[in-house]
C-alpha cells in the first residue's frame, strides 16, 4: 500500500521497464545534443525531427527496399547522418560565429520544414513497424516477463551510449574533438581538418537521433509528430544534466525515464510534468545542472 491505493508489483516493474525504454531514448537524444553543442555551439532544435526521420527511414527501407530491421539499424543512421552532414555544410556553416540564438532559430526552422513535409504525406496517424522475428516473444525473469525487444533496446542503447563516451573521452580522435572544442584555431594550426570534424560531429549527433528513431519504431509507431513530442523533454533532460558532461547526459536520460515511469505508477496525473518539475528544482539548487561545470552561459 502506498498513497492510499494498492500498487501491484507487475505494474511497478512494467512501468519501470517503460521508464527505462524512454530513458534510453532520452539518453541517446540528449547525448547527441550534447555532442553537437560541444562542437558547434548550436542547440540542435531539429534533433526531434531527425529522430522521426530515423524511424521513417527504417520504415521506408523495409517497405521500399526490403531491408530488414538489422539492416535499417545500420543504414538509417548512416543515411540520416549524411543528410545532417549536408545540412551542416550548406546551411549551419553560414551562421558559425553569429549569436548562438541564430543556430537555435535556424534548426527550429529546419525542424518545421521536415516535420511539415512528413505530416503532409503521412498525416498524424502512426504507421506500424514490426518487431524483428529474432526478438519476438518474452522471457521470464522470475519476477516479471521481459519482452525480448524491450530488453534489447535498453541493453543496446546503453552500449551505444558507453561507446560514444569512450570514443570522446578515451580515444585519440576524441582528444582532437575535445581540443577543437576548446580552441579550434590552435587545433587547425596542428594540421587537423577542423571544419570536416565539425561536419562529421553534426552528422554523428544526428545519426544518434536517427538510431533512437529506429529503436523506437517497433515500440511507438512511426509518426510525423513523434519528434516534436519528445524534444521538450529532452531539452529538460539536458538542462537537468548540464551540457558540460557526456556521461552526465547519459545518466540523466536513463534516470529521468525511470522517474517518469515510477510517477506513472504512483501519481499518473503528474507523469507528463514530473521531468519539468525536477528541472525547476534542479535550477533552484544547481543552476548549472547536476553534472555541469560553472554557470550556464
Amino acid at each position, binding site marked *: 500500500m502506498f498513497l492510499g491505493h494498492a500498487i501491484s508489483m507487475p505494474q511497478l516493474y512494467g512501468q519501470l521497464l517503460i521508464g527505462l525504454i524512454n530513458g534510453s531514448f532520452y539518453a541517446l537524444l540528449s547525448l547527441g545534443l550534447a555532442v553537437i553543442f560541444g562542437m558547434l555551439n548550436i*542547440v540542435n532544435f531539429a534533433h526531434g525531427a531527425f529522430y522521426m526521420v530515423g524511424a521513417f527511414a527504417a520504415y521506408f527501407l523495409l517497405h521500399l527496399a526490403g531491408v530488414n530491421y538489422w539492416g535499417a539499424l545500420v543504414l538509417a543512421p548512416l543515411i540520416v547522418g549524411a543528410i545532417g552532414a549536408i545540412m551542416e555544410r550548406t546551411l549551419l556553416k553560414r551562421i558559425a560565429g553569429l549569436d548562438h540564438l541564430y543556430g537555435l532559430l535556424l534548426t527550429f526552422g529546419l525542424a518545421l520544414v521536415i516535420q511539415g513535409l512528413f505530416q503532409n504525406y503521412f498525416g498524424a496517424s502512426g504507421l506500424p513497424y514490426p518487431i524483428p522475428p529474432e526478438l519476438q516473444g518474452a522471457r521470464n525473469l522470475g519476477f516479471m516477463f521481459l519482452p525480448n525487444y524491450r530488453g534489447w533496446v535498453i541493453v543496446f542503447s546503453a552500449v551505444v551510449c558507453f561507446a560514444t563516451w569512450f570514443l570522446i573521452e578515451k580515444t585519440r580522435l576524441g582528444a582532437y574533438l575535445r581540443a577543437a572544442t576548446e580552441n579550434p584555431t590552435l587545433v587547425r594550426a596542428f594540421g587537423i581538418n577542423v571544419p570536416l570534424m565539425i561536419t562529421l560531429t553534426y552528422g554523428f549527433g544526428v545519426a544518434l537521433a536517427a538510431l533512437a528513431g529506429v529503436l523506437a519504431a517497433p515500440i511507438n509507431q512511426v509518426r510525423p509528430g513523434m519528434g516534436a513530442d519528445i524534444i521538450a523533454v529532452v531539452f529538460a533532460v539536458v538542462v537537468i544534466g548540464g551540457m558540460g558532461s557526456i556521461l552526465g547526459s547519459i545518466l540523466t536520460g536513463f534516470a529521468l525515464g525511470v522517474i517518469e515511469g515510477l510517477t506513472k505508477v504512483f501519481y499518473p496525473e503528474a507523469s507528463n510534468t514530473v521531468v519539468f*518539475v525536477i528541472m525547476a528544482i534542479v535550477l533552484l539548487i544547481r543552476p548549472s545542472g547536476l553534472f555541469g561545470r560553472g554557470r550556464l*552561459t
Partner: protein
Amino acid sequence: MSVKILPVPATRFTREERDAGVAFLVMLALIVVGPFVAYPFFVMQMLCIALFACAFNLLIGYVGLLSFGHAMFLGMASYVGAHAAKVWGLEPELAILCGVASAAALGLVTGALAIRSQGIYFAMITVAFSQMIYFFCVEAPFTHGEDGIQSVPQGFAFGLIDLSKPSLLYVFVAAIFLVGFFVVYRTINSPFGEILKAIRENEPRAISLGYRVARYKLAAFVLSASLAGLAGATKAIVVQNASLTDVSFSTSGEVVLMTLLGGMGTLYGPVVGAIVVVSMENYLAQFGQWVTVIQGAIFVACVLLFRRGIVGEIGKAIGWSI
C-alpha cells in the same frame, strides 16, 4: 524697450520623432481602415496576436532573452480570462485583468527560475516550462481538456458597452492593443529601457556599473508575460473560446517567427510580422501542413539572408530609424 523675438525653428521634431510619428500614423490608419477591407474578427485576432508579438519582442529585441515558450502566458491568460467571464460571470475588462494577473504570476515564477541561466539555456528552459503548462492545461479540470472553454460571453465592458456588437468590440480591442503598444513604447524609451538595452549589449558591464541585472531582467520578463496575457485574455473574449492551441508549442514558435520576420528589436517589426504570419495562416489554410513547411522555410531564410527582418531592412534601405 524692444522685445527681441526668437526665430521659430524650421522643424520642431527630431528625425527620430518624425520617423516614429509617421510610422505610428500609418499603423493607426491601418487599424481604422482594417475592418472595412478585411473581416473585422480576423483583424481583431490579428491585433491580439500583434500585441502578443510586441510583448515577445520586448524580451528578445531589447533584453536579448529568447523565450521559446511564450505561448504559456498567452494560453494561460486566455483560459483564466475565459473562465472568469464564463464561470465567475465577471465583466470583460475584469476578466481580462484576471487573465493578465495570472500571466504575470506565471511570468514571475518561471522568470525567476529561467533568468538564472542565459542564452540558449534560457530558451530551452522556457520550452520546458511551456510544455509543463501545456500538460497542466490538458489535465486541469477548469480548462476542459481537448474541448477548451467554449461560448465565452462577451458581456458589457464597464457595464455599458455591449461587446456583442462587432463595431464596439472592435473599438474595445483596438484600444487595448494601443494601450499595450504604448506600454511597450514607453518601456523601451524610458531609463529602464535603456538599462535593458545595456544588459543586452554587455551584461558584465551593466553588472560592473552596479545594476542588479537579474531584477531588471525579471521585471522585463514579468512585463512581457503580462502583455502576452493581455493579448491572450482579450483574444479569448474576441473569439469566445480558449483552447489548447493558444498554449501549444507551435504558438510559441509562431511568435518567434513573427518577430524574426518583422524585425527583432524594432518597434513595428512584430506588428508587421504578425500581419504577414496571421494572413498567411488564414489565406493558405487550404494547403494544410504546407503552411508549416513555408513557415520553416521563412525561418531559414530570415536567419540566413535577412536577419534584420522586414522592418529592419526597409528602415535601413530608406535610412529611417523605425
